[in-house]
């Protein structure tokens, strides 16, 4: 694989604020093409990581490479290949929608005004309204249209639907997925909501307490993990570190294992695991240095 086939590579990236580390030892190789979800609870370091990916923050340690270029250089060329939609989709509230588009045109190398206008017309968002007077869903759509009109190779979205109502959320994701389907753009977005991810994403990165705890292709991850249900046991269950989580009820023990589908021990039943349960199991694990588990393309 050549470097340009990676949308994003981070090597030992960490970010330290005055109150401590927001992110540590983050090493990722994410392929170009497709949709990557960055999942984690609030305060896990998602926003910090995304801001470093788009060059808004400088990492305290390590390097961030986007589409084969070091983002801290922030040249117009690298900047124009990355689209960013920040949390709460900020817009200049007193600008009209048309002025927001003019802003995009004035500050970008390749800005597809017609594309943006077409998207906004489809959504029935008038160009002469002030951005601040639009509904939250419409503001998010304007911000998305703006980011897509840059024709970016990597589109980064920070909690894009967190502040939207269910209807606006659905509409937003439809537009986003439509853009992905048109091709050419890799999407990296963060979310603290786990359900619905399976439908939308190809790749998953789980972030907890400032560390990557799981990363990989979703299909691969689901194939590698399964639930084993058997009689209750308190003995040491770890088979070569394959047990991710053990849950005991009165009579049964349920194990989430990552064993790549080894035959189950006698008396144990194997079941596939749902993505949401998989993510939650990794989020429940106590954080420990070097616990990152990666698979998929990087392997």
């Amino acid at each position, binding site marked *: 694989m050549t470097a340009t086939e990676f949308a994003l590579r981070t090597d030992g990236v960490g970010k330290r604020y005055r109150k401590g580390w927001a992110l540590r030892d983050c090493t990722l190789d994410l392929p170009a093409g497709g949709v990557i979800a960055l999942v984690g609870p609030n305060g896990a370091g998602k926003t910090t990581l995304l801001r470093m990916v788009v060059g*808004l923050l*400088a990492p305290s340690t390590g390097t961030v490479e986007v589409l084969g270029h070091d983002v801290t250089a*922030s040249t117009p060329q690298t*900047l124009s290949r990355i*689209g960013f939609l920040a949390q709460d989709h900020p817009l200049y*509230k007193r600008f009209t929608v048309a002025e927001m588009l003019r802003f*995009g045109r004035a*500050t970008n190398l390749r800005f597809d005004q017609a594309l943006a206008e077409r998207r906004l017309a489809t959504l029935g968002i008038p160009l002469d309204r002030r951005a601040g007077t639009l509904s939250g869903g419409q503001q998010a759509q304007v911000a998305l249209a703006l980011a897509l009109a840059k024709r970016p190779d990597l589109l980064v979205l920070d909690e894009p639907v967190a502040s939207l109502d269910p209807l606006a959320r659905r509409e937003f994701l439809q537009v986003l997925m439509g853009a992905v389907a048109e091709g050419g753009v890799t999407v990296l977005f963060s979310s603290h909501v786990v359900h619905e991810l399976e439908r939308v994403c190809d790749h998953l990165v789980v972030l907890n307490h400032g560390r990557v705890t799981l990363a990989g292709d979703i299909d691969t991850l689901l194939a590698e993990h399964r639930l084993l249900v058997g009689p209750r046991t308190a003995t040491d269950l770890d088979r070569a570190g394959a047990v991710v989580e053990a849950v005991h009820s009165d009579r049964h023990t349920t194990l989430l294992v990552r064993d790549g589908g080894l035959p189950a021990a006698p008396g144990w039943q194997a079941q596939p695991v749902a993505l949401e349960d998989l993510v939650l199991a990794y989020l429940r694990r106590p954080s420990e240095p070097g616990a990152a588990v990666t698979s998929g393309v990087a392997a």
Partner: protein
Amino acid sequence: MTWLIWRQHRTEVCVLGLLVGLFGVGLLVLGSQAHDLFPGGPVRCAGDAGTSEACTAALRRLDEEYGYIENLLAAFYLMPVVIGAFLGAPLLARELEDGTWQLAWTQAVPRMRWLAAKLAALAAVTVALTGLFTAVITWFRQPFDVWEGRFQYDAFDVEGLVPAAYALFAFGVATAAGAILRRSLPAFGVAFGAFLAARMAVASLARPAYATPLTATEPVAAGGATDQTGSRPAPTVADWMIDNGYADATGRRLTTLEYYELKDAADRAGANLNQFLHARGIQEYWVYHPADRFWTFQLIEAAVFIAVAAVLIGVVVWRVRRRIM
């Protein structure tokens, strides 16, 4: 970028432009009436010519009819901070409080270019507006300056180069405070406070020390002030008086208490005070900066404020460059 800067800051620029325009036109109208009192131009009444009958009459009318405006000009001490802080405070703070810095710095314009364009444009507007207003005030004050000199606080602080330097200082404080506090209004407040503190401290403590003041001494004349015999004349109104008092025959300066003791002694003896002092060899002294140091002092004070403004802008640039937003 030009369009963007104009679109984002046009409200401030228009409000300040209107303010400068209204006060400026008002001062031009009143000032041209005041100037009409001096048919040959106010400068012809400068110095000794001011004692001529026509000039005395003109200056008296100026004082009676326009003196109140001169007093109102004191309010314009604040014009530089209003202009500088109003333009500087929102430069970064508004982007930071609305989250739009994340929008602005992820387009294809690198953030340092963005910052340089904004700083240059808004600093230029600051200097232009303050400079324009200062030009009007300087012109308006011409007749008053003839009469009172340009070294008093109500002239020096609103004329020449220093108002633009004050405005740049306020612009620098407001921009840096906005970058650190991330809020426009507190940044404006900080700039206002810093402006008042710096201006007062510099004007009262630093300014008199820009150069060594001159000292003039003259024995007290027996016949009073009109009987001037000394070869070193006392400073005129155009000079900036720092200190004035009496010294004994050896040149030792008298305290106020010692002077009043002498005065009491003269009263008890029933003697004329001047003759009494003259007989004891008492001399009057003046410590002052001559009027022709005006531009030197303006340059020094402007340099001080511009240097501080440059340091503050440096802090802003450093923060943005290091991405510690």
